């Protein structure tokens, strides 16, 4: 592919992604990087129950912040490694060592991806899939909660 991509080619690429139902696509060639994320339609409301009373209520000025729900990217093949516990996220075994993995690295099944410190214990979190790390969601040293996404991995067949 040439390093010059025009509008038409991008449009073609998008329709290709539509066709293949891919949620996420990234391409990098010299001097050019493209990242396409396709919104996946959310599940339809399960029930539609008639609600008595006014249909639209004015939004209060200081409405409490709503819980942010992690977007349900059904990213066909993309796998997410989530935190099995509450703790502190570390990308390396100690402050002077290099991180276990970086974006773009190949990882094997059962390879250590990070450490979560909980109750003074260092818990190694392993990959449950072989593939390529496409995203690291948490910064080193930051707290994580149960179920929080840590890594996205594109499995290799």
């Amino acid at each position, binding site marked *: 592919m040439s390093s010059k991509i025009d509008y038409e080619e991008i449009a073609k690429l998008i329709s290709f992604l539509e066709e293949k139902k891919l949620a996420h696509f990234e391409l990098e060639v010299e001097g050019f990087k493209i990242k396409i994320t396709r919104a996946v339609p959310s599940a339809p409301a399960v029930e539609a*129950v008639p*609600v008595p009373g006014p249909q639209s209520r004015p939004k209060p000025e200081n409405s409490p*912040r709503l*819980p942010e729900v992690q977007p349900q990217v059904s990213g066909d093949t993309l796998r997410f490694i989530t935190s099995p516990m*509450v703790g*502190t996220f570390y990308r390396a075994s100690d402050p002077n060592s290099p991180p276990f993995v970086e974006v773009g690295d190949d990882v094997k099944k059962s390879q250590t991806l990070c450490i979560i410190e909980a109750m003074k214990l260092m818990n190694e979190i392993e990959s449950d899939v072989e593939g390529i790390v496409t995203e690291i969601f948490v910064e080193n040293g930051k707290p994580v909660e*149960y179920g929080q996404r840590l890594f996205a991995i594109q499995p290799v067949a």
Partner: protein
Amino acid sequence: MFSKILVANRAEIALRIIRSARELGIKTVAVYSESDRTSLHAILADEKICIGPGRASDSYLNVANILSAAEITQADAIHPGYGFLAENPRFAEICEASGITFIGPPAPLIKLMGNKNEARQEMRMARVPIILGSDMIIDTLPEAKKIAKKMGYPIILKAAAGGGGRGMRIARSPSQLDEQFAMAQNEAKAAFNDASLYIEKYLPNARHIEIQVVADKKGNVVALGERECSIQRKHQKFIEETPSPFVDERLRGKMLKAAEDATRHIGYESLGTFEFLVDEKGKFYFMEANTRVQVEHPITEEAYGLDLIKEQIRIAAGEKLSIPDGLRMRGHTIECRINAEDPATFAPSPGKIDFLVFPGGPGIRVDSAAYQGWRIPSDYDSLVAKIVAHAPKRLLAIKKMQAALEMTAIVGIKTNLPLHLAILADSDFINGDYDTQFMERFLAKNGPPK
């Protein structure tokens, strides 16, 4: 004083604690399960941490995740609310070992009162009357039969590790004891991981009346007037009121003194409740002590004009008891527990609340974490709201509660509102003529509410 409290609970009691902490200028951390992402306690706390999946054993009972949540948010105290880890001495111990204050009594006191049989023996030493009982763990049916025969039927089998109204079975005859004994052991084992049972004489026409105590670390103790909790079904309280229509000034004085003596005897601190059975003659017997805030604490707060949660937090921080000695209750207060359940079958009714209107106006208080559009998870208990009515006299309080419940609308789920309204209109209830068997009689007589 603490700068940040982690609330290790959910729903209305978590919200109740968050409110008081906020008034005291203390930041709060909510912990929540995946089923509680949209629950109000998680929305209204200053910070929130997801601690596990919906199942309580993996989230609200997950000590490691809760302590890690306290650590990463740098909370300096944990309030356990009621239920879950509130009466788990090991949890209190681990909190203290981790340098986090457990807002409640010290672990050894939780442990002492947690074993219902040991608690009985301790009360005997404090000269608090206890019900005739086996005074030891009964392991076998023949043993149980021998003791029951000596005591006289009916008897009640109780799990030594029990509490919260669970792990109890009544036997009215030797053949019933045959049927119930193994079942009670299995139930105790399943619910509390301890099959130990003891036997007590069962008082069928008694009332369940409890005394709130508040004690600080310096030995100051105050006992607050009674909560009448006899309107209950399967040992689950339904309506509570204060004062009790049965208790006069003299009996109240004796019960307050007994609770105060017991508190001093064991060197108790924090909030606690002594539950008593009171027979027709006004004789009272210690049943059990709860080392945490009670579900029905709001009626005491309304009667005395207090905030017990604030008091509990201040005491845990080492402050002196601020309730003046000899404080008197005012008027009459009633609480109705509104549950998400079928009023006829009592089957839980989780689901989405499509439309919600709570009552209001002078003398009405609502403790609830429900809101319109919220989906009540099926993982936890069915309590939706505690509606409290306070008025100068008992009949006025009943009238106020009736009006309040009639103007309450919870659409989308089934609730026990119709049953509450039926009981509030019952002549025995209105006359204050009831005991712990009231609900059974009422349901047999009237059938399910329309």
